[in-house]
């Protein structure tokens, strides 16, 4: 490069006639769709944080037993309705490391409740990587090592204990295993049904479309909860917790598909007329192949965003059903089952910590909403 006397820059390299002038921008223009989406998504800070939070929640599920100091149905009969304990680091100005004070229960025979006194003289350091009750890591590997345990002679009820002296914090961790997967299974069912019916209605049109459309309209005009209730009431009471769990998630999914089917249908109606669909059909592709290979990939990402937005409804649905006693039942542990214990005013007033499971519910539902909004906003990368 040389500078001319009149300050112009002139490149000394010879001019290549057939060079691609868009080459410097090529990388940008050829960036794959997911990269563009990711770049856009990254700017939605709230959605990003929610996504990371949810990812951590789901990653935590298989190792819940390791993190929880207790197992879900482990009872401490001497500590019924024990209030939350705090973990402290400093005792009387000197550093002790994480410790708890031991508490002792006394029956209050005037008000008929347990009162707890904290012994603030003896700090008892917590144990880490210690042996506790047996549980299964990843659901299969038997183990008894816990991240943190209560020291001998003391308890570790971070969020208090419930009616039967079970640790609320540990139960919330275990409850997440069911409460969070209910939404995933439910949405899978709803996704399969919604895509199948929506695609059939949109692709074939005519009578199929009419019938499916009426079904969608009818299902959408009915209140969900009473139907959920009726269907769950039909689950035989002698089934095991696992079977009940699966059937409840499927019930939640069965009533959720119409919204999705409607979206799929309207998309199909417009995409069906595209040239590439005609081309595929003329080359002899069967309807199933046209739908799967040519039509669905067009708006799969959009569907995933709307699915993210319907997971919260299912989590809340499970909670409501279990709360009313028609969903999951003890000994299964879910957030709704736990809230079933907090059903009366006494729990809210005296034992407020039994209502703590509502916090994870609210946080998770909010996170799914933010994530879904962020995804939806970033899925069209070419729109500013």
């Amino acid at each position, binding site marked *: 490069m040389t500078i001319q006397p009149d300050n112009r820059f002139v490149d000394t390299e010879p001019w290549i006639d057939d060079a691609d002038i868009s080459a410097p921008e090529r990388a940008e223009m050829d960036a794959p769709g997911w990269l563009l989406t990711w770049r856009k998504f990254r700017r939605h800070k709230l959605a990003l944080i929610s996504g990371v939070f949810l990812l951590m929640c789901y990653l935590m599920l298989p190792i819940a037993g390791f993190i929880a100091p207790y197992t879900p149905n482990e009872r401490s009969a001497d500590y019924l309705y024990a209030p939350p304990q705090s973990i402290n680091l400093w005792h009387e100005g000197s550093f002790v490391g994480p410790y708890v004070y031991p508490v002792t229960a006394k029956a209050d025979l005037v008000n008929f409740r347990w009162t707890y006194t904290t012994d603030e003289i003896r700090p008892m350091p917590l144990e880490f990587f210690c042996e506790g009750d047996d549980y299964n890591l990843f659901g299969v590997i038997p183990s008894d090592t816990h991240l943190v345990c209560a020291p001998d002679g003391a308890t570790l009820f971070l969020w208090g204990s419930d009616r039967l002296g079970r640790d609320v914090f540990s139960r919330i961790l275990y409850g997440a295993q069911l409460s969070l997967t209910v939404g995933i299974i439910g949405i899978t069912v709803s996704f399969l049904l919604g895509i199948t019916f929506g695609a059939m209605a949109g692709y074939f049109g005519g009578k199929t479309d009419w019938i499916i*459309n*009426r079904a969608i*309209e*009818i299902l*959408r*005009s*009915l*209140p*969900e*909860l*009473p*139907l959920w*209730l*009726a*269907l769950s*009431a*039909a689950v*035989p009471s002698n089934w095991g917790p696992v079977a009940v769990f699966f059937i409840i998630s499927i019930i939640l999914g069965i009533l959720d598909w119409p919204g999705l089917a409607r979206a799929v249908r309207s998309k199909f109606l417009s995409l069906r007329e595209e040239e590439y669909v005609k081309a595929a059909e003329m080359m002899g592709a069967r309807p199933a192949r046209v739908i799967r290979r040519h039509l669905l990939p067009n708006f799969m990402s959009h569907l995933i965003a709307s699915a993210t937005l319907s997971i*919260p409804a299912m989590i*809340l649905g499970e*909670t*409501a059903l279990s*709360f*009313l*006693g*028609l969903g999951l039942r003890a000994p299964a542990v879910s957030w709704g089952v736990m*809230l079933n214990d*907090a*059903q009366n*005013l006494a729990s*809210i*007033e005296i034992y407020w910590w039994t*209502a703590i499971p*509502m916090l994870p*519910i*609210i946080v998770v*539902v*909010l996170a799914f*909403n*933010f994530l879904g909004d962020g995804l939806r906003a970033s899925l069209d990368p070419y729109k500013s």
Partner: protein
Amino acid sequence: MMFLRYAVYRFFTMLLTLWVVSILVFVIINLPPGDYLSNQIAELRATGQAEGVAKAEFLRTEYALDRPLWEQYLIWVGFSPGPNGFSGLIQGDFGWSFEFDRPVGEIVGDALWLTVLVNLAAVLFVYLIALPLGVLAAAKSETWVDYTAGFVGYLGLATPNFLLALILFYYGHKYFNLPIGGLMDPVYEGQPMSWLKVKSILLHMIVPTFVIGTSGAAAMMQRLRANMLDELSKPYVETAKAKGLAPAKLLAKYPLRMAFNPFVADIGNLLPAMVSGSVLVSVVLGLQTIGPYLLAALKSQDQFLAAFVLMFVALLTLIGTMISDMLLVLLDPRIRYGGRGA
């Protein structure tokens, strides 16, 4: 004239839907193995109470439970004569509640009106809250007003109804001395309407209305905000602004009217959710609506009661949707009279 034709058309589609719903409800109710009476008969046999068995057997034939399912359905709806001639839903005979040992119509009686009342109040509440807040959030978009409204809205969507109910009840009683539980003071139960009774009902309705309405209001507020923002970015708004129209007048004159249509249309989506919510909240708060009856009936397989409540709830939402469809046609002449998608 066109409107009348549309109304008639819409009414008949509603009837048709209701018919399909009745099949659906009947199937769902009969899904669980066994029924109330056979359970009872088995139990009575086991404990050796012969006279009870005779009564249960009598009820079985009286309500045609010994016939095949499809015949039971026809009799229940009233399409075909039962043991006592035509006496089904169509004829106004809602069947017998085996658990309460009284006719279904007698049990639900008042609860029906209270259910309608609670849901109407909740719908009104949604509109009263969502309309000003949604407009405000759009007009002051991306300021703290917008963010606060959005955050409160999200929170309303994310909090489980029943918990909100319990918490509001507790604090409402503690700080505002609001009554706890029920829809009226027990003194007024079964009494004829009087000014004091109305006042008692109104006072009891504050918390339930708030709880049932919150999630609906949050959703509606967000939609109204989005609609308003769409309208506000159109050139005519800019023109009006350039010509010096006052901000409040500018907002109310055109954008609000345009954004209002989806607002009315949305009631079709809103109502099912609200009725769901009211069932749940009624159970938690012990309101004398049909919610608690539904739960009790489902738990004990009291099939006529459960089926009737389900049908009533469906009818409520269907009528609501029909009314909103008709209102929409009146409001917006651009909508074709052919009905949605038909």
